[in-house]
């Protein structure tokens, strides 16, 4: 049974994919989630697959209700993404998708920090191939940035777990709380993957750069694994509430003015994560239920939105709002599915977002975080602005771009329709989802007062949109890049460095000495020294080698004798 645990099934699939042809690969990507689901359902609750490794006892499977609900949605997401990617004939993408999904699943099921770290790193490495599979120089550069940050998170996790182990002698992945350096490091590692404010940029940078199908896969796993990890290790940590509140608010503004619709969705993903983080921060049973439910629903409707925008990209070659418009004429099914996704994320009653987001909002209100609660209400209106209105409106309606693309291919339509149906089913029958949640739910989302409040909020927000459009105040879609905190490492750092280098070149001739030149000479120098033919890397002659040997000998003799 240890050899048939769900993550391994994905890995077997990935391995098999390496050796078989296109048709078989497609079937494997579909089949692996199904078998993994069976395997997951057959697993008993509790710990299993314990393995001795370097003197630690690793627990590869720790199944409880929290882990179960995340595992279930990960498997469903992998399955839906596989249908959506039916047309893909790219071994790299298929293998990395399976590896990535398996690793995310493994991370959720891991019962100790070392196996968590293991999966943490596999998700980083496997997922970057979904970006590189675009096969352009820019995608390569983006992937590199993404990988560096993701691996950095893994390094932090490793450092944190070592410190934590030194402190406590335990590697169990249990509730930790922010109590020591070790737990702080682990917290930061989780925070990077969860796209905390100022650590969020990899997400908006990388997701729009991935392939059409790759983004759908990416949107499901990494961040939700991080949310799960936070819920497991840091539930009830008050700082998370405020981090989450900031996360819900600030991406809205960026999403509102972003032109690339996949980047808009990436910002909105960030904003939705904020809700989940707030839920983790509150940490009551109701709030954690809310987090799990919201993650579940969010994976579905965010996949759906990425799928529909992906289909548009697939057919038109662009996902820029300024280039699109009027596509409803030829892509009606995609449009309807997109609208379902938009309604779900905006939390219209009868759609899935409504029944999950309410849990978190109510939890924050009940625990007296009124300001945070208000921030979340405002953010809810904001979600409508970019994901609810902007995505469908500028893609399918607005001004006619003149593009008349064909409807999305059959398999994409199937994937979108299934996902859309799931969103509606969960929205109409919330108990289906509620019974999966980690704690018992005695919560009724469909009360008159609740529905009324939500409808008021959304309808008046819509009204505001109409008003702003008519008045011409709503900002038009224009091409361009909006700066974000990645500006620091994408622009300031490189320009400063090259400015240093340049000024060093000129200054060096006149002044020769000065702090700046020193620094830049160092940078140039390292490169010069290390390149083939440089001092450090050329084939040294006998003379210099012997000289170094003699010097070192004298040094050692001197040290030892005097």
């Amino acid at each position, binding site marked *: 049974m240890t050899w048939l645990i769900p993550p391994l099934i994905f890995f077997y699939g990935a391995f098999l994919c390496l050796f078989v042809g296109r048709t078989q690969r497609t079937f494997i990507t579909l089949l692996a989630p199904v078998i993994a689901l069976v395997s997951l359902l057959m697993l008993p609750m509790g710990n299993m697959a314990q393995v001795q490794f370097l003197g630690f006892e690793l627990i590869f499977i720790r199944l409880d209700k929290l882990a179960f609900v995340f595992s279930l949605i990960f498997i469903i997401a992998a399955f839906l993404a596989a249908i959506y990617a039916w047309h893909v004939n790219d071994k790299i993408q298929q293998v990395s998708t399976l590896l990535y999904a398996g690793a995310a699943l493994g991370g959720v099921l891991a019962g100790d920090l070392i196996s968590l770290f293991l999966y943490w790193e596999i998700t980083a490495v496997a997922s970057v191939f979904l970006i590189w599979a675009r096969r352009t120089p820019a995608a390569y550069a983006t992937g590199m940035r993404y990988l560096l940050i993701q691996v950095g998170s893994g390094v932090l996790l490793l450092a944190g777990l070592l410190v934590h182990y030194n402190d406590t002698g335990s590697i169990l992945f249990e509730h930790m709380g922010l109590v020591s350096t070790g737990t702080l490091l682990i917290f930061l590692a989780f925070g990077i993957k969860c796209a905390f404010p100022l650590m969020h940029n990899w997400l908006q940078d990388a997701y*729009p750069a991935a392939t059409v199908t790759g983004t759908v896969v990416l949107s499901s796993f990494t961040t939700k694994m991080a949310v799960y990890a936070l819920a497991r290790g840091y539930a009830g940590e008050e700082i998370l509430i405020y981090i989450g509140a900031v996360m819900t608010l600030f991406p809205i503004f960026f999403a509102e003015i972003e032109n690339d619709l996949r980047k808009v969705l990436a910002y909105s993903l960030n904003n939705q994560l904020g809700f989940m983080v707030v839920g983790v921060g509150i940490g009551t049973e109701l709030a954690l239920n809310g987090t799990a439910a919201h993650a579940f629903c969010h994976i579905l409707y965010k996949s759906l939105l990425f799928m529909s925008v992906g289909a548009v990209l697939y057919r038109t*070659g662009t996902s820029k709002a300024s280039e699109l418009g009027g596509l409803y*004429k030829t892509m009606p099914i995609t449009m309807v599915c997109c609208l379902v996704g938009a309604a779900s994320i905006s939390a219209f009653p009868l759609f899935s977002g409504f029944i999950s987001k309410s849990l978190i909002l109510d939890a924050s209100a009940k625990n007296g975080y009124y300001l945070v609660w208000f921030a979340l209400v405002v953010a809810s209106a904001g979600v409508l*602005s970019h994901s609810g209105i902007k995505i469908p409106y500028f893609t399918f309606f607005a001004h006619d771009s003149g593009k008349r693309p064909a409807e999305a291919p059959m398999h994409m339509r199937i994937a979108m329709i299934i996902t859309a149906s799931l969103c509606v089913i969960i929205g109409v029958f919330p108990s289906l989802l509620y019974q999966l949640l980690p704690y018992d739910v005695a919560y009724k989302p469909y009360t008159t*007062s609740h529905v009324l409040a939500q409808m*008021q909020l959304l309808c008046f927000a819509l009204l505001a949109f109409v008003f702003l459009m008519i008045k011409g105040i709503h900002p038009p879609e224009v091409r361009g890049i*909006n700066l974000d905190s990645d500006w620091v490492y994408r622009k300031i750092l490189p320009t400063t460095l090259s400015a240093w280098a340049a000024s060093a070149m000129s200054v060096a001739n006149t002044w020769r000495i000065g702090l700046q030149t020193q620094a830049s000479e160092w940078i140039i120098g390292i490169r010069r020294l290390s390149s083939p033919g440089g001092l450090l890397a050329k084939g040294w002659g006998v003379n210099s080698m012997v000289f170094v040997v003699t010097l070192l000998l004298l040094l050692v003799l001197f040290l030892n004798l005097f």
Partner: protein
Amino acid sequence: MAIVMNGKKITAAFAWVESPTAVHMAIKILAGLCALLFLLDIIIHRHTYVPGEGMWGFYTFTGFFAFTLIVLGAKQLRSWILRDENYYGEQSVDSEEYPTSQLDIQNEPAVDRENDQ
């Protein structure tokens, strides 16, 4: 309703959205709905947890002004941070075309069979 393009007719089930009357109608419906919801707030007593939440029209005002403020704030933000697409040069996917080899662009849509016959 049908759209004529390149001499072929394309059915579009949602073509009505483009007619000005329909748009006006939709706006009117929305306005009506809003008015209804606004009035319902007086009639129906909402359960509240947060002080002020029970205030008359709380959600209506929040919805309207939050949205407006977000749009205006974003507009202001754009004036600060908008840059050219080539700002980051080769390091950014924003300025490059998506490689068409991985796409299936069909700008000539498949003609609806029923209509063709």
